């Protein structure tokens, strides 16, 4: 049969990322894939060499809107390793709490997107509704829904007060109940079983050969989790389990992510209940000595690594970032082979390539200098008014 090249992206309704795939297909079957990720390169590694350690952290948080805490933490813990400073335990626990909340919101977001890709938007609505509980906790603690700005070299910038602690703990049982619901749902919901099972399968050998990381590797039975293998923050002190599965397909990746949701809630609860007393920062020196560090971090999408080299100044000489998505791309090419064209969106989405996240709605009036935040009630009222106006026309 004649080979056809199907271009997908960089702008495509089924992809939420500016990436271009040239899919080589024979009929409806995929036989190969070429990839171009150049559409959104922002030169952050170069820009990071120009900023001192205080100013570079907010920049690195913006590498990714979803795993912003991951990039910030990976960098500051690398710099702290070079400076040989010990972060107070309370700061390590707070970093862990934010990291796991970030994982919960990221996995819930992913579950919604995966459901959307198979045309089951009801689940998308449910998971994104539940994700709001996590976003609320993050907003209460950090003041932001994304780009939390918690990290600084030497600790964290905001404390978790007893009131915030209680508010966060109070939100967890409802979230846990919803997650338990998804576990049951996944076992018997027909749409999910039909579209996830056997799709984009990666064997254990393939997962190892193609260097996969994170839930993509763990769903193929590769027990590989930086939180356990190279412990950082408070993970060595917290009881939790690495979640793995042996399906290797989109279904397996879903099982792993839902399992990790439960583990993350467990870690967050433990850390909130056992939050050590004390300072949240130590004073870090302005300059870092000459040195280098490989800082590894288990981001929601898998192992993130920052190679940092310093030269005795207050700026990094080199920051080399390897994101989990880059590590997983090679396996996507392998898992797409012999699959159906219609399964492209869900197989690509299965590794959870980074997506962007929006902030809350702010109404700006150019005549005034101040801005007004809209509350949920305002927003509903405004929607009702708009609908009425439209119906009258």
């Amino acid at each position, binding site marked *: 049969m004649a080979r056809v090249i199907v271009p997908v992206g960089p702008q495509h309704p089924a992809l939420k990322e500016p990436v271009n795939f040239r899919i080589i297909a024979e009929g409806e079957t995929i036989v190969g894939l070429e*990839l*171009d*990720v*150049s*559409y959104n*390169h922002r*030169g952050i*590694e*170069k820009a990071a060499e120009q900023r001192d350690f205080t100013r570079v952290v907010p920049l690195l948080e913006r590498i990714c809107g979803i795993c912003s805490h991951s990039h910030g933490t990976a960098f500051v813990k690398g710099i702290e390793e070079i400076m040989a400073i010990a972060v107070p335990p309370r700061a390590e626990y707070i970093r862990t709490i934010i990291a796991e909340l970030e994982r919960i919101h990221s996995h819930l977001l992913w579950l919604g997107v995966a459901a959307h890709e198979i045309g089951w938007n009801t689940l998308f609505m449910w998971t994104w509704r539940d994700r709001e509980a996590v976003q609320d906790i993050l907003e209460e603690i950090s003041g932001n829904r994304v780009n939390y700005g918690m990290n600084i070299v030497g600790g964290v910038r905001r404390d978790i007060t007893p009131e915030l602690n209680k508010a966060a703990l109070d939100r967890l049982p409802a979230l846990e109940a919803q997650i338990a619901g998804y576990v049951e749902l996944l076992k018997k919901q027909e749409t999910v079983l039909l579209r996830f099972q056997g799709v984009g399968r990666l064997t*254990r*050998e393939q997962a*190892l*050969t*193609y*260097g996969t990381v994170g839930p993509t590797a763990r769903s193929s039975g590769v027990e*590989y989790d930086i939180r356990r*293998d*190279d412990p950082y923050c408070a993970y060595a002190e917290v009881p939790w389990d690495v979640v793995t599965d042996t399906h290797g397909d989109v279904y397996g990746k879903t099982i792993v992510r839902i399992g990790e949701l439960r583990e993350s809630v467990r870690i967050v609860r433990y850390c909130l209940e056992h939050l050590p007393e004390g300072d949240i920062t130590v004073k870090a020196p302005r300059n870092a000595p000459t040195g280098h560090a*490989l800082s*590894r971090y288990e981001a929601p999408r898998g*192992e993130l*690594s920052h*190679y940092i*080299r310093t030269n005795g100044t207050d700026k990094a*000489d*080199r920051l*080399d970032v*390897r994101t989990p998505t*880059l*590590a997983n*791309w*090679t396996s996507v090419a392998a898992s797409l082979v012999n699959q159906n064209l219609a399964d492209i969106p869900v197989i690509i989405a299965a590794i959870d390539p980074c997506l962007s996240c929006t902030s809350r709605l702010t109404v700006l009036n150019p005549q005034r200098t101040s801005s007004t935040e809209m509350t949920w009630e305002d927003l509903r009222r405004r929607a009702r008014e708009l609908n009425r106006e439209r119906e009258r026309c």
Partner: protein
Amino acid sequence: MENHAGVGTGDGGNRMTTIQEVQQAFTTGSDAACIVRNRVEAAVPPARIRGEVARARKDFGFDHLIQISVTDLGATFQLIYHLTGPHRIVLSLAVDVPREKPEAPSMHDIHPPAGIYERQIHDLMGVVFTGHPNLKRIILNEDWPQNEFPLRKDWKPEPDRYYGGVREVL
């Protein structure tokens, strides 16, 4: 940890490779300082790097390439191959390639993800990986000028040169 096809864990059964064994095999003499926690660092001459990465995989179970980091050190570019495996030891093999002839052997056949990492390094730092089947542009836009490598320390954008993308109309 069970063994898997084609890759030895270097344990000859059930015993795990220890960090001392890795240190003895890859570092020379008085490099005791090269161990930090679970990390072992070693410098390797360019001619031997392919053999060393292959040996680490075959005999010591380093089956996962974490990252190939690259730094512009002035006279040389330093490539570091960060490897790990079921024993969770991280082995960092550093190789310096000369600036005037920035060439290193490709590892795409030993560690498939190296293919994409090498394309990235080639694009941004201008290191040529010999034996790479498809060393095409991946990170920079297609109309980026040839022979301009933005991560090199001596790179400065020319004010009147076109670097691709949308042309600004003044």
